[in-house]
């Protein structure tokens, strides 16, 4: 089947991870002839989602980017379902019954939440790639307060209803956040200027808020630690506030069926614009001349003007140029039959919730994403807990132990399955310093949202195609005129508003010209 593959391309992209897929889509979108290949038989590379079975297999076979993988089946029988006088039902989950539903799972290697007004959402809307994706708005942003999981109120009705805060605290919090929201505008509060150069915590303390509010802001809203600068804290607070009230109740979205869908959305756009896709195709060697790169793959030499690759998919001889992969993220994944926190946090069968955690010493942080079946990522009655922290060692379970202990007892009967692994990638500096004509993407880093990944893709794209727009809006199918048809058949109403206005202006101008004649 590979024999009819063309041999010459403007751009060959190796690896179908998030950043690579963005670049492939962006290049294809501006008319470049793109070949996108991946040595795996699935899309997404280290950004992919897997069925339970495939996930286990992946952990059994360490690779340069996913390593130190272990998984454990726990005593997988458990009773549940007596909440709130509902009819009692007993479901017992066993290893077999979980595996039977293997395909109903979408287990993410690199799960993220996206800010409703963040870089990912903006990019998806701007490029019109949003038509390929569906999202669920998160149900709760949580924080840990005196060892208990509580919801951070995100709307006025939340604030009104919450029992977490007293009246005075509610008012203090509103006042503080309003001040943050106004910061940087002309009407900026003068007293906040004094805090520039200091830490955000100092500013917060000067507002004489209670400990609970301080926790709420530091842990969940500004996502700071004690050393975070005032400016960064402000920026993050504003990002949180700016994403409220857009979709649903919280400032975050999670892609339905898992984050592994996202790279595929970009790949789809690339394909729609003529990009060619080949999975299960690895690259044996890459050579280059002044003007082009020669890629040896499956007995063929493919030629391209440019080449972008994920660090993990380069042939061994070249990978050394980009440095050895180092542990980047320590990941934990748990399947449980009981959601974390109170019934309140898990109405109607469980929420899709987010929690940022700090170690007891406050030095390291992790984030937890709880997924219920509403995310499309697991069967009903089960919950996935994703834990992620920047790796400090090659022992993911060790890196995460402190956080796990704060959240649940790993030996509790409701924990049915646990897995740990490390995501590795070469250090950013060694990628930047490599002396080859190959553009190498950075791999996942620890972040909420996709800011760094998108910036990485945008940066590489701008080096490849200077002055070209990164993912301009793709027209809707209704707007596309088929060859040979009269262009005027294009329905005026199918145009976006700004274009429609332009069209009307043009028509008016044309009429006026006629009169002048």
């Amino acid at each position, binding site marked *: 089947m590979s024999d009819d593959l063309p041999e010459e391309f403007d751009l060959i992209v190796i690896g179908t991870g998030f950043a690579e897929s963005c670049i492939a889509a962006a290049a294809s979108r501006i008319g470049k002839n793109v070949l996108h290949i991946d040595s795996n038989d699935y899309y997404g590379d280290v950004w992919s989602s897997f069925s339970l079975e495939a996930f286990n297999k992946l952990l059994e076979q360490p690779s340069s980017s996913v390593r130190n993988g272990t998984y454990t089946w726990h005593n997988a029988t458990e009773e549940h379902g007596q909440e709130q006088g509902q009819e009692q039902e007993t479901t017992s989950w066993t290893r077999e019954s979980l595996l039977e539903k293997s395909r109903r799972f979408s287990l993410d290697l690199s799960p993220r939440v996206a800010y409703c007004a963040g870089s990912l959402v903006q990019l998806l809307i701007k490029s019109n790639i949003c038509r390929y994706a569906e999202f669920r708005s998160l149900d709760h942003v949580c924080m840990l307060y005196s060892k208990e999981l509580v919801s951070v109120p995100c709307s006025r009705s939340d604030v009104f209803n919450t029992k977490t805060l007293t009246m005075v605290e509610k008012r203090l919090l509103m006042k503080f956040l309003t001040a943050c929201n106004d910061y940087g505008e002309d009407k900026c509060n003068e007293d906040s200027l004094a805090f520039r150069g200091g830490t955000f915590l100092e500013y917060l303390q000067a507002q004489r808020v209670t400990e609970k509010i301080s926790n709420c802001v530091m842990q969940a809203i500004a996502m700071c630690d004690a050393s975070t600068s005032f400016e960064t804290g402000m920026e993050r607070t504003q990002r949180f506030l700016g994403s409220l009230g857009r*979709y*649903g109740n919280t400032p975050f979205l999670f892609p339905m*069926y898992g984050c*592994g869908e996202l790279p595929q959305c970009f790949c789809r756009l690339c394909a729609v614009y003529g990009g060619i*896709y080949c999975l299960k195709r690895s690259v044996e060697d890459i050579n280059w001349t002044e003007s082009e790169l020669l890629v040896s793959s499956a007995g063929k030499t493919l030629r391209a003007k440019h080449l972008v690759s994920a660090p993990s998919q380069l042939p061994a001889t070249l990978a050394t140029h980009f440095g050895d992969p180092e542990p980047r993220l320590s990941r934990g994944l748990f399947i449980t039959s009981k959601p974390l926190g109170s019934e309140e946090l898990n109405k109607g069968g469980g929420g899709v919730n987010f929690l940022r955690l700090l170690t007891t010493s406050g030095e390291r942080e992790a984030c937890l994403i709880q997924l219920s079946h509403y995310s499309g990522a697991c069967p009903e009655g089960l919950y996935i807990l994703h834990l992620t922290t920047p790796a400090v060692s090659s022992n993911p379970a060790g890196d995460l132990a402190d956080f796990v202990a704060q959240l649940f007892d790993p030996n509790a009967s409701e924990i049915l399955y646990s897995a740990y692994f490390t995501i590795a990638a070469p250090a950013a500096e060694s990628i930047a310093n490599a002396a080859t004509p190959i553009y190498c993407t950075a791999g996942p880093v620890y972040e909420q949202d996709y800011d760094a990944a998108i910036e990485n893709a945008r940066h590489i794209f701008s080096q490849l195609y200077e002055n070209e727009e990164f993912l301009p809006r793709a027209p809707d*199918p209704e707007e*596309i005129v088929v*060859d*040979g048809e009269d262009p005027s058949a294009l329905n005026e109403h199918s145009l976006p508003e700004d274009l429609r206005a332009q069209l009307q202006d043009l028509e008016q101008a044309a009429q006026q010209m006629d009169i002048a004649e």
Partner: protein
Amino acid sequence: MAKTYDYLFKLLLIGDSGVGKTCILFRFSEDAFNTTFISTIGIDFKIRTIELDNKKIKLQIWDTAGQERFRTITTAYYRGAMGIMLVYDITQEKSFENIKNWIRNIEENAAADVEKMLLGNKCELNDKRQVSKERGEQLAIEYGIKFMETSAKASINVEEAFLTLASDIKAKTEKRMEANNPPKGGHQLKLTEIRTKDSWLSRCSLL
């Protein structure tokens, strides 16, 4: 904006390269046939609204965008699909044999209750036929799905095929609704539908 339809069905076209999926799509959505436009423009789906039993049904029909070429259809393509047209070319034996592989692919990735239909396209090329109508019928029976021979070029059965598939999905949907058991799920938000809810600072955003 008021909804201008009663149902929205997402349909997919699946089958080997060159069996005429895009032509079928254009015949149905535009009543046009043109062999030159394919792969030159970025078409990924087409919309046509039909009427069945006084219900307006908006059909959103997705094309493979060429990703079938090396069997690299994304799993995301299958999400939310309610009906699938499996297409082969009656003049290409291989495309008929591959239907089995495509069905396996569907079973792995699409919802279990997705409605399927088998189409033998290019039936106007009877003199080059390699797959008899009987074999097509037989395969469809094997999988318990409906079958038609179509010609996008001569405009044979294309309309009928989509109407059949749509009406089967409609019947299934209505049966499910009658059973008073609508599919449960959280609100799924399309990014394009910006819903403004109250937030702490909604007052400020009005300034």
